[in-house]
């Protein structure tokens, strides 16, 4: 069955079993392996993408339910690691093994889009669905605060940017599809 959706700002059509989770469509059908498989039960957050700007576990999201929606993956967050969350992640040197980090970053970007200045408690609450087996949590907290700072200090410029980009006008996701 052909299913159409918007993937990282571009129209995408896939012809797969409608019950196939978005995770496997991304990874196996489309070859976009930045989104990771960790548990298959929405317990670890490694597969987090944004659908309509909301952090969503792609491992339990049937592709049929994505029809017509805006999907952003780690590959689409920015073309050049320029999203404030990615910049902060690099400045703080968050990752260790790195396997969970696509999911962490997608969750953090969704949080900051909704709450530009989260407290530690709000960070913990938004990020507790994402397991990091290496234990980078302390730096994740630090990097989210840093990303909030970066995002807020350039928000004026970012707004001008997004207005100049017709594709982004309808995008809910901050710093999303390009």
């Amino acid at each position, binding site marked *: 069955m052909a299913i159409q959706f918007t993937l990282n700002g571009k129209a995408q059509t896939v012809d797969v079993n409608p019950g*196939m989770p978005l995770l496997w469509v991304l990874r196996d059908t489309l070859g976009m392996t930045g989104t990771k498989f960790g548990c298959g039960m929405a317990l670890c957050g490694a597969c987090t993408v944004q659908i309509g700007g909301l952090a969503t576990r792609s491992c339990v999201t049937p592709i049929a339910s994505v029809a017509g929606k805006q999907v952003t993956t780690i590959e689409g967050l920015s073309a050049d690691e320029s999203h404030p969350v990615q910049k902060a992640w690099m400045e703080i040197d968050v990752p*260790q093994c790195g*396997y969970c980090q696509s999911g962490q970053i997608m969750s953090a970007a969704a949080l900051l889009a909704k709450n530009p200045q989260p407290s530690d408690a709000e960070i913990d609450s938004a990020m507790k669905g994402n397991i990091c087996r290496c*234990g980078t949590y302390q730096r994740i907290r630090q990097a989210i605060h840093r990303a909030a700072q970066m995002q807020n200090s350039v928000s004026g410029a970012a707004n001008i940017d997004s207005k100049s980009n017709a594709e982004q006008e309808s995008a809910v996701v901050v710093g999303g599809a390009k």
Partner: protein
Amino acid sequence: MNVNRRGFLKTVAGASAGLVIGFYLPGRFETLAAAEASTALNAWIRVGTDESVTIVIDKSEMGQGILTALCMLAAEELECDWKSIRTEFAPAAEIYYNPAFRSQGTGGSSSVRSSWEPMRKTGAAAREMLLEAAANKWGVDKSTCKAENGAILHPETNRRLTYGSLAESASGLPVPQNVPLKDPKDFHTIGKPTKRLDTAVKVNGRAEFGIDVRRPGMVYAVVERCPVFGGKVASFDATKAKKVPGVKNVVEISNGVAVVADNTWTAMQGRRALEIQWDEGPNANLNSEDIHTLFAKRTTVPGVVARKDGDAAAALAGAAQKIEAVYEAPYLSHAPLEPQNCTADVRADYCEIWAPTQMQTMSQALAAKITGFPIEKIKLHTTYLGGGFGRRGSDFVGEAVEISKAIGAPVKLTWSREDDLQHDFYRPASYAKFAAGLDADGWPIAWTTSIACSSVSNGFTPGSVKNGMDRTSVEGCADISYSIPNFFVDYQMTEPGIPVGFWRSVGNSQNGFFSESFMDEIAAAGKKDPYELRRRLLANSPRLLAVLDLAAEKAGWGTPLPPGRFRGIATLYAFGSYAAEVAEISVDRSARTVKVHHVVCAFDCGHVVNPATIEAQMQSGIVWGLTMALHSAITIDRGRVVQTNFHNYPILRIDEMPVVEVHVVPSQEKPTGAGEPGVPPITPALCNAIFAATGKRIRRLPIRPEDLA
């Protein structure tokens, strides 16, 4: 490390233009290897005509930061431009053998230890060749030239040649031997907090983990394994599985039945439709309670002596006060976030493998056995590892090779989380009986421990097991540093049938908890402050005493805490390094919960290569240990693992993360381990703090709500 006279450097013919250099190191790594000299190449450097410097990484990067550390070691002597560095993972080959293991592999917190000299020597030799190439070109004496930031300079005449422009001429020169290494006081890179070189690819999704490998014509597989350890396929019916659209093949392999499909999800759907009759074998009725009973029984009879100082039995009999306790720890799974996986392509006369493995040679050897090819026909590529922790050996590699061989196509095998938790090589469950005798003043004069657990080494390094003694089963107890005149530890190797393996910090993970909790019991029985007691008993262990003092000082040991807050302390020597940790906690006894607010860690691992990595590894080890203390247990019912996924095998999450403060002792001693030693002290520090809060001693992990009531 001793580099003996047979160590030599040589240039190696490379495919790309420029200087290629390798360093061959015969010999062994004192504290780890059992046998005598073997020849191993520890590093490669390639200087490209495009000014790039490629460092070939011969260790598995699983988050511990070794990729960056190896580059720092080479760059310190090479004097290249840090920004010019590229990295690639070494193929599996004998020249990359880790002298710690006499095979290619990463583990035992051995990487910096085993590369500390070889990587610097590699860099120094390459630098000398570039110096000589420039001197020859200019017709000047080499001693008047200097290497700096990716170029050779001739200050007298103000001339400069870049490494890229010298690479080809340098590659024809003889490789200098025994180039003196820099005085550490002149280090510009080693010892400076340095950002990881693999961060960008880990924030943009481009880092290629094993599970991300894609090959032309590749198909996808999952394997259904017997849920009972030691069981096997009796018969199976693939009719329904083959009817699932997209399923291409169903084949039996030695570990079970593989379903091959167009994509991973379809393979999983096909697997659900399989009908398999299992021969469950001898463990079909095994459960955790039986294992506990078996271990307990085994500690009632004398075991193999692991340590004997003085006469502990006599001293115990004559002691003014005697205390006894039994400690227990469960099986634990590694649960790296990237499930096991491997991509294999078995052709007519060679086999190519892409795997997130810590054990390249072992994987190659298994593939050679399966295919019948000689080992040099097994081309193994190591990818990034989504966590390792001792889990990633060769079992999943063998499965992928068997499937590819059977179907004649490249295949990616992926394990589900359930597969991963239920078919691991577990941290052994352990049972330990302790007794201590105190003198009239409350100081310990006798200590005895009897340990029963499975042997990890039996399965992985059988040569290291001598007369029933596996040192990894008793480490963290038999080798503790306290001065107690009568000290006795024995061991009963006991094999109930559950596969066990190396789990971050190995025997120290459970024995460190046992010993350091029991030391706290001795302090309480003798009415001593737990820190002051340890201080006195560590008078002859200056480096351990120093980290203990540092942790206590930074945590404000002995100073008042806010109401409801309590501290616990613990320390351990492991992997050549010294760690002490203080946990500050509160317990809500009505809710039966504990919160860890703050952890102070003091650490001495000798000369630090990258302080940023050390800090991250200590935080990481503490999270690992807290997960073990608060959450994890693998239990067995009817020969099967009960736990299936992260809902019943929980991992510490961000809302439980304490503030962790790491203090590293400056040192010029040789580097020692860093990946594992941060783990053991946190569990006893936490449980000792809970004792301070509640008066209840926790002797069995994980901590249960009733322990906190």
